[in-house]
């Protein structure tokens, strides 16, 4: 035990430093506020004073049309949410499975591995809209027994196949970031290849790819609108119908707002997870 305990009293120098820092913070805060206000005012003024504004206001911002179409577009949007959630639940295991199969090294698994490679190559290279058309119209045309004809189901299948390929690549990238020494340690304990994957590699890989995965899901939420092309009356299609009936584009604005309302929280969650991952990898964070 030391008899003298150092007591810290802020020095004049430190107090001056903190004063300057506070002042700088206030200054940059006010600059940001002023510049934002100025920008918004100028932008609003430019739009409102444009020659076409009265027309745009009427066709895109009609309060009456908004109120009329909102319940219908919202009902359609519920379908987007259903498609999204179900496709999501299918995409995760599909992507993970494809990623793991691509990592199998035993020659016995060559056909499976080749299939996984072909799958990712084909579905990552084909525009999602095209996949939706091909699955939506092609699958029922085969007239096979047991093949669903409900466009909602077909949309889920198409989006799952398309996004499964992306997600598989994200998982594979995550698997590759786990250092080989982790594998060596697991194998040295007698764990087999699949056990090593399951208990050591995948738990670390999945944690690392959570932010990019969420990013893909934000994108998927929007792409559920593609179901409209094969006849699902979801938000976009409903907005089209309403717009046609009312000769007014406000229903599109309704649909856009609904999509934004769903994707923004997801985007913020992605940011939060990415920031947390960075913090953990920073100094003192260890791994």
């Amino acid at each position, binding site marked *: 035990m030391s008899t003298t305990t150092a007591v810290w009293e802020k020095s004049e120098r430190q107090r001056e430093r903190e004063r300057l820092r506070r002042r700088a913070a206030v200054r940059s805060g006010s600059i940001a506020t002023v510049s934002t206000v100025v920008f918004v005012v100028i932008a609003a003024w430019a739009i409102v004073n444009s020659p076409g504004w009265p027309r745009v206001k009427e066709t895109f911002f009609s309060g009456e049309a908004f109120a009329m179409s909102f319940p219908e577009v919202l009902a359609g949007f519920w379908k987007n949410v259903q498609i999204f959630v179900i496709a999501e639940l299918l995409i995760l295991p599909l992507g993970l499975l494809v990623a793991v199969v691509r990592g199998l090294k035993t020659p016995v698994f060559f056909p499976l591995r080749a299939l996984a490679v072909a799958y990712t190559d084909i579905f990552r290279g084909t525009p999602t809209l095209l996949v939706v058309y091909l699955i939506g119209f092609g699958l029922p045309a085969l007239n096979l027994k047991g093949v669903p004809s409900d466009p909602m189901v077909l949309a889920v299948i198409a989006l799952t196949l398309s996004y499964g390929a992306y997600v598989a690549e994200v998982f594979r990238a995550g698997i590759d970031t786990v250092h080989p020494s982790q594998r060596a340690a697991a*194998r040295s304990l*007698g*764990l087999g290849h699949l056990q090593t994957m399951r208990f050591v590699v995948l*738990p*670390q890989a999945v944690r690392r790819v959570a932010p990019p995965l969420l990013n893909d899901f934000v994108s998927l939420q929007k792409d559920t609108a593609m179901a409209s092309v094969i006849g699902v009356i979801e938000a976009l299609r409903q907005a089209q119908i309403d717009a046609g009936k009312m000769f007014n584009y406000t229903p599109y604005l309704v649909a856009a707002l609904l999509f934004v309302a769903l994707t923004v929280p997801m985007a913020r969650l992605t940011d939060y997870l990415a920031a947390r991952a960075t913090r953990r990898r920073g100094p003192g964070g260890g791994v």
Partner: protein
Amino acid sequence: MSPLLRVEGLWKLYHGNPVLRGIDLDVNAHEVVCLIGASGSGKSTLLRCVNLLETADDGAIFLEGEEITDVRADPDRVRRGIGMVFQAYNLFPHMTVLENVTLAPVRVHGRPRAEAAELGRELLARFGLLDKAGEYPDRLSGGQQQRVAIVRALAVRPRLMLLDEVTSALDPELVLEVLGVIRELKESGMTMILATHEMGFARDIADTVCFLDGGVLLEKGTPEQIFTDPREPRTREFLRRVLDARRL
């Protein structure tokens, strides 16, 4: 009595460059063998070959008389009898200390979870780590992490332990606590092969010291003989350089 481990004419090449050139080595039960030599002399590669983390390019390795380099041998089964500790600890960062220690007993050896946890706690207590059982590895010092890695390897009750420069990544004051653990293992009769740069420790703990140079096991003897009266000029030069570096 046949040796616990026999290495016969072992060759290993990386991209055509020989890293091991016909190594012969016998290790008896309860024997402690230290491998010394410059970086790149093949110490780590030899240990990795014994644990089948590397495939031998020629020669053979026998564990308790059974050829483990046989292409029909199951590497997972072979590794169950061998514990390995790495220079960089290689703990699993997403698992607590106790989970690291019980993973192999539960998943590989099929022990009930409670029994594995009890054995794990016993081992952690023996090495003064019981209070860290619930911590994640990144909360531990390097010395503590390496002791956990040793406990993890011990938890499967190996017949042979391979320690690959286990103190090389540690601060000097942390080296001692890890060396203490290894000394205790020797006293408990564990058979060990250590690749090490700690000459003083090798001299103190080894029954046999092997000097590797350019992938060749150049000289083998008691620590007394190797450190005081090396036959080979290369061994003499290596030891002189190590001692010079120590004095700086």
